[in-house]
């Protein structure tokens, strides 16, 4: 039985449609990331599940029960806001025991449950501390403990690492995921950070302009993106505009600007159709010689950037198109320098072909 199920959920704010006909089902114990750019409707989706908003159309089910009209306090779905929203006027103990106390459990039970959970998140000795006295990591543990103590079965995380600095975010992500998994909770985590989503999620739901664009495991999303938008939003890629010039059983040939030709394995397009060829940056290789079975184009290195453990090259092809290549830095390889003439190679299997978007290519990529 699915933990959370949405059927045809639609939500409007005056004229703006925040969610359109959302259908979605989340299993018990699953860690799901809802990924999308600002304004995609992520927070609206989360608030509808929490009961802080009611959908205009459609049904919401939690543990198989329809919960439309059920107030938030009856749903066992705890909402965790950006930076955790620990009550600033209460100490750790009061924060964690908030759920049990408001549910009017008897005192002994409140004591036992709260101290047990505090021990579990290793905060037994900080019960009298106030939120502002705690580190980011501790605050997160308190927030989680508070949710568990309130009997949460579902955690709704709204950009939980919003304003924290980059290194702390990375640490907290893994901590959060393992705590959630240990407790067997179902988590729905909203973020606009694709790296975060790829790292923690069992499954990613990509939301765009109120619609689900694609759902799948992180690997699926990365290796098999269904649209230019998903490919560009998750991981990024080179997008080259062209049209189908030749079509045969082993693939097709795409003609791009300046009469250059790219061989791709895809055969699903029609002859003469305007298409976009997409190649991940790490699939673009640079060298001094042609590679057999690859597309080989000649270009000049226009810029080199150092990105983490790899080098990112901007290579200008003969036709003026720029192509990005990311090559892992290895001690034995000598990097190319600016102005050097190189051969750009990529395999036909690595090229994805999408129909040319109706609103133009830039529109699909720039939305991010």
């Amino acid at each position, binding site marked *: 039985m699915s933990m959370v199920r949405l059927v045809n959920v639609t939500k409007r704010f005056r004229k703006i449609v925040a969610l359109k006909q959302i259908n979605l089902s989340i299993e018990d114990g699953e860690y799901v990331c809802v990924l999308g750019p600002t304004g995609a409707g992520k927070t609206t989706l989360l608030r509808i599940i*929490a009961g802080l908003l009611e959908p205009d159309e459609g049904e919401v089910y939690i543990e198989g029960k329809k919960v439309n*009209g059920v107030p*938030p306090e009856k*749903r066992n779905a705890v909402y965790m806001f950006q930076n955790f929203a620990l*009550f600033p006027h209460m100490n750790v103990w009061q924060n964690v025991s908030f759920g049990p106390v408001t549910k009017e459990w008897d005192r002994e039970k409140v004591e036992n449950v709260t101290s047990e959970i505090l021990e579990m998140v290793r905060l037994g000795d900080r019960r009298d501390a106030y939120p502002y006295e705690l580190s980011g990591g501790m605050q997160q543990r308190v927030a989680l403990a*508070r949710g568990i103590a309130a*009997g949460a079965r579902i955690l709704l995380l709204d950009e939980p690492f919003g304003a924290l600095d980059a290194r702390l975010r990375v640490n907290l992500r893994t901590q959060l995921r393992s705590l959630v998994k240990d407790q067997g909770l179902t988590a729905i985590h909203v973020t606009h950070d694709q790296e975060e989503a790829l790292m923690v999620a069992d499954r990613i739901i990509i939301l765009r302009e109120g619609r689900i664009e694609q759902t799948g495991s992180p690997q699926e999303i990365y290796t098999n993106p269904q649209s230019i938008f998903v490919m560009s939003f998750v991981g990024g890629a080179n997008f080259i505009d062209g049209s189908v010039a030749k079509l045969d059983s082993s693939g097709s040939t795409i003609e791009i600007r300046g009469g250059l030709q790219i061989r791709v394995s895809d055969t699903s397009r029609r002859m003469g159709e305007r298409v976009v060829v997409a190649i991940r940056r790490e699939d673009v290789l640079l060298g001094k010689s042609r590679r057999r079975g690859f597309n080989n184009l000649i270009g000049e290195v226009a810029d080199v950037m150092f990105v983490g453990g790899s080098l990112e090259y901007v290579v200008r092809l003969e036709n003026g198109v720029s192509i990005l290549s990311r090559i892992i830095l290895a001690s034995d390889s000598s990097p190319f320098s600016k102005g050097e003439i190189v051969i750009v190679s990529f395999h036909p299997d690595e090229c994805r072909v999408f129909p040319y978007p109706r609103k133009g290519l830039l529109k699909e990529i720039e939305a991010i």
Partner: protein
Amino acid sequence: MTARLRGTDVSSKLVVSCTLITFIIFVLLPTFYLISYIFLRWDEVWYEVFANPIIGDENWKQIVRVLLFSFRLSLSTVAFDLIFGIPLAYVLARKKFPGKNLLEDLVTLPLVIPTSGFGFATLITWTTITGIGGFLGLKRGLISLNTMTPFINVPFILFIVHVALAFPYIVRTLETKIQSIDMTYEVASRTLGASSLTTFRKILFPLALPGIFSGAVLAFARSLGETGATMIVSGVSATASIAIVRWTSEFKLSTAAFMGSLLVLIAWVIILPAEIYVSRSRRTRHLSFSLPTNLAMGIIRLERFLSRKFFFLKDIIPLIIVTLTVVIPIAVVLNSVLLYWSSDPYTGKVEGGVIYQLFGPSNYFSSLLRATLTSTIVALVSTYIGTCLSIPLSFIIERRWYGRIIRTMLKVPMIIPTSSLGLSVMLLWGPSGLNLVNSGVWMIILTHIVFSVPVIVESIIAAYEGSGIQMYEDSARTLGANAYSAIETVSLPLIKGGVLTGAILSFTRSLGETGATFIVMGRDITVPVLVVNMVEALAIPAALFTSTYLIALSLLMLAIVRILTKR
């Protein structure tokens, strides 16, 4: 489950409608009743104001004269305060220096000191031998009650009092506004080569314009409606709000009501456009016009020169004004109480001493005790009722679509002259209206509730908006608290500071109010009114003592507010 939800819905509707009904009856109705009174009794008004068989339209002519005088006074006060308030607000908002807190308190002081006490302090400072005159070695006061201010043709002493009383409205409003403007814009402008004056004119001024505007409106309203201090220093001239008090006591009710509703209408005409402008200015583009290049270059050069040579003036002149209008009067009062303690220092008569007047045959001390009791009861009860109404009202303002409308409505009691408000309350609840309440303590309380609600609501809203309450409350809901326990355990504790600050401000305001109280008090005199009575009875030493007492009380209040807002 759904039944329970519906139950919550019904009770929340009940709370909302009770709050709104109370708000409409106790706050809105008195503010608007005056206007309907004019329409209901138009015949009477026409007869008394325009077509009196004996004096003709003499009353109308007087209204016009008084209004013109009031406007001249208030407009020049605002202009003067703007010129010196803007630099001071800038300094307070942007600079850190030792004594800043003290300076802030000094600027705020006229806001909390009961104005009749403050007016009396100013009066003896400027016009008597114990003030500046004596200090300079003269045998009389520095000026007389009738010394006129050049150009604007209003008595100098009146002008000084109004300048001091309206000053905090401009400075504090603008200070808050400037603090909310990101300083990086100014830094960017300076690093791009603009002098500090040019930066001010082209960057800060346009961005702060809504703040300047609302500060000016508040200051104007304050000056127009001021009664306590004005009564003491006005001499023979009459401002609009004083005229209302006088006419009411002369039973020229229709004339007073007509004038009062004119003032209410004027307040509306000023506030509505200002409200709309201020609330929209975030979205609309700022006004811009282009000067010829030569002229613009010239101005920038001049500004660069002035910035280099005379910029220190912006720190000094406001300081001098605050010293002259606030510090010296208070010091003079304190000094004079000591001088007059046992006897009149100039004639040596014990009858002219504080002790004789307080405990002698006139027994002002027992009047003072009685007035203190009345004042305290009024302030406590009206603040308590005001707070009880303000808390749910603030939540409604923040959470309902019509909240904005209510908030605008609440601005009205803040800017209409309190004497018109008092008149309106008297006509509505008193014997000539619904006949439910007679003049006295209860009517004073009804009047004070009207202006305590907006004060408390503003303070609660500031706390509310600064603390992300919605987020905490939503968290509490998903953790299992129902709508009411979420408000009780999370939201209320978070706005506690705002509620307390608002309550104290309202208490102070009620303690110092004179204009409305004069009209509705009947025989229950409050302390600030007592000061006016003492001055009119020429019991100067007693008035000195009472003013000192009021100043001490308000300093205590200010200290409490400081401690509360620090946290």
